[in-house]
């Protein structure tokens, strides 16, 4: 008898680019041993990834808030224009910075994981 659950039998349906979902495995708080990387370039890249992820998250949140307000009609035309202009420029700047550090969009994509369910 297998001492491990039958994982293959659990996959009901999968459609699309699974790498975008499988990548989350890296971000689960878990006890699996991890390699320690002390290469300075990698450390800098790791820090950049952290900082840019935070900034990107903030940007997405603010944008969502603004879109929601726009949807419910509680923004003036001037506000919409100003916000849109800011978000557009911020998005562009983020793409530049991400590229500068040799990162990809997918690298800035951390999930809330378990804490997401507390909200």
């Amino acid at each position: 008898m297998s001492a491990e659950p039958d994982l293959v039998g659990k996959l009901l349906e999968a459609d699309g680019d699974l790498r975008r979902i499988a990548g989350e495995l890296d971000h689960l708080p878990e006890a699996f041993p991890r390699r320690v990387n002390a290469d300075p370039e990698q450390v800098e890249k790791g820090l950049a990834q952290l900082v840019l992820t935070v900034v990107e998250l903030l940007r997405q949140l603010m944008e969502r808030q603004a879109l929601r307000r726009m949807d419910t009609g509680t923004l003036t035309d001037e506000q919409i224009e100003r916000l849109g202009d800011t978000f557009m420029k911020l998005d562009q700047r983020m793409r530049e910075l991400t590229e500068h550090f040799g990162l990809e969009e997918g690298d800035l994509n951390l999930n809330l994981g378990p804490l997401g369910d507390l909200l």
Partner: protein
Amino acid sequence: MSRSLQHEVTLLELVDRVLNKGVVLSGDITLSVADVDLVYVGLRVLLSSVATLEEQAQLAAGGAQR
């Protein structure tokens, strides 16, 4: 679609359930490992709590829950 990706994805679902879901009974012995990712997760919670709460409230009002 590669079999190892399927395996990884399903493993993700399993580990997420075992470590993050399920009933929590208050035992004194805590089994865990300090994890750098928790820093990432913590920051994200701090920054996204308002937006996510609003969003979930809207979804719930829309009848997503039964």
